[in-house]
């Protein structure tokens, strides 16, 4: 038994909470789903290993030499992972600073809050590593099987990268805290997290478009231009890649850098953790004034009032704004491609169509959940003198107008280049968005707006239906854009998905 309030005691406490939270999230609180969940995870793991084997077997057949192309490819993959890790860590660190949960209890106890901070930051590092492992685990295992145990080092490298990403995330968050204040840090750090997460992928895509006229990241990572400008094989710069491939000295150096950076960050910032939490939770928009500024009320009918309310709340939701921004950032490379091809061959524009339709479907699903299920004052809206039908219609209108405002500029740009592709895209965006909204309507379940991130857990069926619908409509629209009748073949499964969702949905109003 660990001594109460000691580091291991806090670690055990935190791990217990995390484990229960994770299980509850994955099983939506139903214990009988645990066995099914374990089964699904096992099948997914086997599938990923088989996939990784077929991807790697030919490449690794003759062993892997750390030539420039290999170094560039592995280095690029590591940078991509690191940008995603940093994004994930920034979001987790921000949440750790602003979450209230049990902090009132712990801060008011005589326990040393520095220990809790150390445990929570280390846990964030562990979770960040686990997220990368989800994808990397099968590939590393297959590499160990095909090329030897030296690839075991990849696990340690991922750990070191996660530690550095977490340390950097803490440093950035604290820097924001001290420069722009706790009131703005939450919003800005989530925006920064979104930008960091998307930056590497988008950067490479933009480079691919500029140099090669297409959107393939692989073309950049395998290009002679890049090979000619990167440092030579023996350069010190490649030590993280050498660590990945199991070179002992590089591995020790990287591990020391990871553990050292994280430990130093914790050591330097832990003493102020309590102050940061107090500042974050004491964030107040109250200003020292005797009288508030009185805005002019607008004459709104019920539908307008509902739409206006939804838009204000969407605009003030930092997580949603950052997610939307990320989706828009991912649309940036296709937009640049569109711009480049404006006067050229329109055929390459076809690749934009499914991207836009898929993004619209996914965004519409999220917005619809917030508007329909995530109503924070259900009693107020239910006791207002308007029919439930009118309420739902106003909320759907708010979502559709938002989707239109976001995607119309892209579609208008497409229209200048190719009218047919624009017409098909706008149809696809409308159908995909409407399907996602309708799914959210069928599976609606009253929840707090702040539970948005967990919306997937309340109904797996809705999540899968929404994802499949968006993917299939994206495919349908993409094929339709090239004028092929095969689009009908993809539309049929999309319709079947909707019919299945309708059949299994609990709400039939």
């Amino acid at each position, binding site marked *: 038994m660990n001594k109460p309030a000691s580091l291991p005691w806090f670690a055990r406490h935190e791990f217990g909470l995390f484990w229960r939270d994770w299980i509850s999230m994955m099983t939506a609180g139903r214990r009988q789903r645990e066995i099914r969940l374990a089964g699904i995870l096992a099948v997914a793991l086997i599938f990923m290993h088989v996939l990784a084997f077929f991807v790697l077997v030919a490449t690794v057949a003759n062993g892997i030499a750390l030539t420039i192309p290999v170094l560039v490819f592995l280095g690029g993959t590591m940078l991509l992972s690191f940008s995603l890790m940093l994004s994930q860590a920034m979001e987790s660190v921000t949440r750790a600073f602003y979450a209230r949960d049990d902090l009132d209890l712990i801060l008011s106890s005589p326990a040393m809050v520095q220990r809790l901070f150390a445990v929570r930051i280390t846990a964030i590092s562990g979770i960040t590593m686990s997220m990368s492992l989800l994808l990397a685990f099968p590939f590393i295992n297959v590499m160990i099987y095909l090329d030897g145990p030296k690839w075991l080092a990849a696990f340690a490298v991922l750990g070191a990268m996660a530690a550095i990403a977490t340390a950097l995330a803490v440093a950035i968050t604290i820097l924001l805290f001290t420069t722009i204040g706790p009131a703005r840090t939450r919003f800005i750090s989530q925006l920064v997290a979104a930008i960091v997460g998307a930056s590497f992928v988008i950067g490479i895509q933009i480079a691919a478009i500029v140099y090669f006229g297409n959107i393939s990241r692989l073309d950049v990572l395998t290009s002679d231009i890049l090979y000619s400008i990167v440092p030579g094989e023996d350069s010190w710069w490649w030590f993280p890649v050498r660590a990945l491939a199991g070179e002992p000295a590089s591995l020790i150096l990287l591990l020391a850098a990871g553990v050292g950076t994280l430990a130093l960050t914790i050591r330097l910032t832990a003493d102020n953790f309590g102050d940061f939490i107090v500042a974050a939770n004491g*964030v*107040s*928009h*109250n*200003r020292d*004034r*005797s*009288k*508030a*500024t*009185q*805005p*002019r*009320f*607008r*004459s*709104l*009918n*019920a539908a*307008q*009032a*509902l739409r*206006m*309310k939804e838009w*204000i*709340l969407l605009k*003030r*939701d930092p997580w949603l704004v950052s997610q939307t921004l990320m989706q828009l950032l991912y649309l940036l490379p296709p937009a640049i491609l569109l711009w480049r091809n404006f006067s050229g061959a329109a055929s390459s524009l076809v690749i934009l169509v499914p991207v836009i339709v898929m993004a619209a479907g996914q965004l519409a699903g999220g917005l619809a959940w917030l508007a329909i299920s995530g109503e*924070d*004052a*259900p*009693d*107020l*809206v*239910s*006791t*207002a*003198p*308007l*029919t439930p039908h009118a309420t739902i219609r106003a909320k759907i209108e708010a979502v559709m107008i938002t989707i239109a405002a976001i995607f119309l500029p892209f579609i208008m740009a497409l229209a200048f280049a190719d009218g047919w592709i624009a017409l098909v895209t706008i149809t696809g965006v409308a159908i995909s968005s409407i399907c996602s909204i309708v799914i959210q309507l069928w599976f609606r379940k009253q929840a707090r707006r702040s539970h948005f991130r967990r919306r997937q857990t309340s109904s797996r069926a809705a999540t899968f239906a929404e994802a499949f619908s968006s993917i299939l409509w994206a495919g349908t629209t993409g094929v339709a854009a090239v004028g092929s009748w095969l689009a009908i073949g993809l539309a049929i499964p999309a319709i079947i998905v909707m019919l299945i969702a309708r059949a299994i949905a609990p709400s039939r109003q």
Partner: protein
Amino acid sequence: MSEELSALSISHLYKSFDQPAVDGLCLNVRAGEFFALLGPNGAGKTTTLRMVSGLLRPDKGNISIFGIDALRNGIEAKKILAWVSDEPMIYEKLTPFEYLEFVAGLWQIEATVAQSRACELLEWLGLASNGDQRCESFSKGMRQKVALAGALIHNPKLIILDEPLTGLDAGSARQVKKVLKQRVNRGATVILTTHILEVAERMADRIGVIANGRLIAEGTLDDLQNLTGSNSDPAENSLEDIFLQLVGDQEKAA
């Protein structure tokens, strides 16, 4: 009592979940009175009031609000009704002014009228200096007052409050009570559930006691004292004594 004078008339109301929550309840609340509905936990108070407010559909029975059949003509009934729950349900990211503008839109209040009422209500409730600040940083008392302002902005004829004073400090509770009393003086009808019996004793014109989903007693404090055969000395027969006797008798009978 004639139907015209009834702010709320409930007859033979039934609602069951796993077991009966409201079991043939009949109740009349006169227009312009302050009515307190008391009962132990799980007695059916909140379920009853949620059915009156249109938040729950009864299994059986009738609800009439100022002569309007609330079950058949819910929209018309809602136009003259306001509901405030014990847990203030407001939007954290809206300011009180934005919240009140939204509520005014739902009830179709003309903008200039809504604005002047909003200012007046926030002034009364001591929130004048917080009108343009987001509710996320407000205390529970401030949130409850914002919710109350929202309920009052359309000048409802019937105001239903479920435990509105729970968690409020003495100052906030006094402000809320003052505003409610003002509304009654202006002709509105207030129905309030509370576990703070002193509030019912001091403020209510009449009191109803519910147990096991039925109305077991109704009347003024004097009526209830007579009903229980209590000593006429108020110092020895507080509402608490009467309430506990009534509920205790009911439990024995059950």
